């Protein structure tokens, strides 16, 4: 499908957050029309507030002035076609883009009202505070117990073996894995099935008591049953954490999230309650994408 200029406009006039004037933006954006995000990007008492986030890979402008809040105890799904910037945006939230050469992130990312996008912020405790689960399960080549205990130990969350045991058990229980591994905690984490490994990674993430969990396509390498278990887990984890999930599965976004954000070519096109996005999206691009009419 060709995307004409009119495609990039909302279908109807909505209450929209108008992105700030970016006249001082780098060259790549000078001739670019300022796009408006349809829907309310703000929430009351956000856990994370992103203000005018821009990401550049060298001269390529990957994220273009995105504003978005993440509330407490909610799951925000980020959807969009490949290359739209949803994973790039997700990685901004715990500074994972710092590890990429030539990547530059501008704007404010407030985690509990503290800007984490500054040089003064130590990314090690930040990444405990904002944990991440990746597409492919990546357990350490150590025992199941070690996988979970590693984080709490290096972050000084436990002093004794008994305290570590308690954290390991509670984390594995919250990840829905305890009953399956309690008799083989000394066995390698890499010996578990794909779905179990992913839940082990989630247990490892929550063991360090994060506030936010970022998930980058956490089920794309899993079978439907393992996917269902992870989705059930996401719903339970929401009671304690804020969760941002990037997914290519529209149905998964519809099932697990309370709000959905649609990205397109680095712009945040539309944000809204998941029910609204999947029944009556306001922007044509969103509708075309989720109904399979796009691209």
């Amino acid at each position, binding site marked *: *499908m060709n995307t004409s200029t009119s495609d990039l406009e909302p279908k109807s006039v909505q209450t929209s957050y108008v992105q700030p004037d970016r006249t001082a933006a780098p060259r790549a954006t000078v001739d670019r029309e300022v796009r408006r995000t349809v829907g309310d990007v703000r929430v009351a008492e956000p856990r994370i507030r992103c203000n005018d986030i821009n990401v550049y890979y060298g001269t390529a402008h990957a994220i273009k002035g995105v504003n978005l809040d993440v509330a407490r105890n909610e799951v925000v799904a980020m959807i969009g076609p490949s290359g739209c910037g949803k994973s790039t945006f997700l990685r901004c939230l715990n500074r994972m883009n710092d590890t990429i050469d030539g990547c530059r992130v501008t704007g404010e990312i407030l985690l509990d009202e503290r800007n984490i996008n500054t040089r003064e912020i130590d990314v090690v405790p930040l990444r405990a505070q904002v944990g991440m689960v990746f597409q492919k399960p990546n357990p350490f080549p150590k025992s199941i117990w070690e996988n979970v205990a590693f984080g709490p130990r290096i972050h000084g969350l436990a002093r004794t073996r008994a305290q570590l045991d308690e954290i390991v058990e509670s984390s594995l229980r919250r990840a829905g894995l305890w009953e399956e591994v309690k008799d083989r905690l000394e066995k390698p984490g890499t010996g578990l099935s794909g779905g179990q490994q992913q839940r082990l990674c989630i247990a490892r993430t929550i063991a360090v008591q994060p506030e936010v969990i970022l998930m980058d396509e956490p089920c794309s390498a899993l079978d439907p049953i393992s996917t269902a278990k992870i989705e059930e887990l996401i719903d339970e984890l929401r009671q304690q954490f804020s969760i941002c999930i990037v997914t290519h599965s*529209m*149905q998964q976004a*519809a099932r697990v999230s309370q709000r959905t954000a649609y990205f397109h070519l680095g712009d945040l096109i539309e944000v809204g309650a998941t029910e609204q*996005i*999947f*029944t*009556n*999206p306001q922007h044509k691009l*969103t*509708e*075309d994408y*989720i*109904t*399979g*009419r*796009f*691209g």
Partner: protein
Amino acid sequence: MSQYGLEGHTVRRYDGELNHLHLRVVELGGLALHQTRSALAALQERDVRIARAVIGREWEVNRLDVSIDDDLISVIARRAPVARDLRIVMAFAKTVNELERVGDEANKVARLAIGLFDGFRLDPGDAQMWDVQTMGRRVVELLERAMDALDRLDVVAAQAVAGSRRELDAECQAGLRRLTTYVMEDARNVGQVITLTQIIKALERIGDHARHVGEYVVYLVSGEDVRHQKCQPDDPPTGGGAAPDPG
């Protein structure tokens, strides 16, 4: 076809399935409209053969209803529709239900026509039939407009159909009041007046179903749910003894 499209999916077979569904729903609408017209023709012509033909075709409406439901379930199961596709499927499912009931009401009118004219035991005069014919014309016109809006997925036309409740209610109430006067004049009229009252009520229901089709087309195209708008506090209740419209 309006600017609003069922097409454009990357998977083109999906386009075909939704278009096929649309065609079949329109086909059912055409059949329901034909049944209604025929039932009214049976009354107009005082012809029980036409009425029997309406009853004989009832199974076609039911068969199409079941068949379209199967297609809808298949699309839901295989395509997991969302957004406008979800509204299309939901609106078609509800529209099919309304059209099947139009068929039922047309069938009822045909049976009542047989009761009136089979042997002409209760043959009402032209004056008594006047209200039935007037109501019938109005209902057929409304149903035609609803089918046209459904065919073209025309939200403006559908809104006009959906907003026509008061006219239809007024027509129905006026007809029922006039029929009551025939009973007051001569109690021997009670038999045919009861039957004519049942016919007017059946026609009113057909009008309601047509209106609901209009509401579903509005929902399908715009995403706006315009049902039950009579629940607004500034909408006065209609007078007379007619049962309230449930929808």
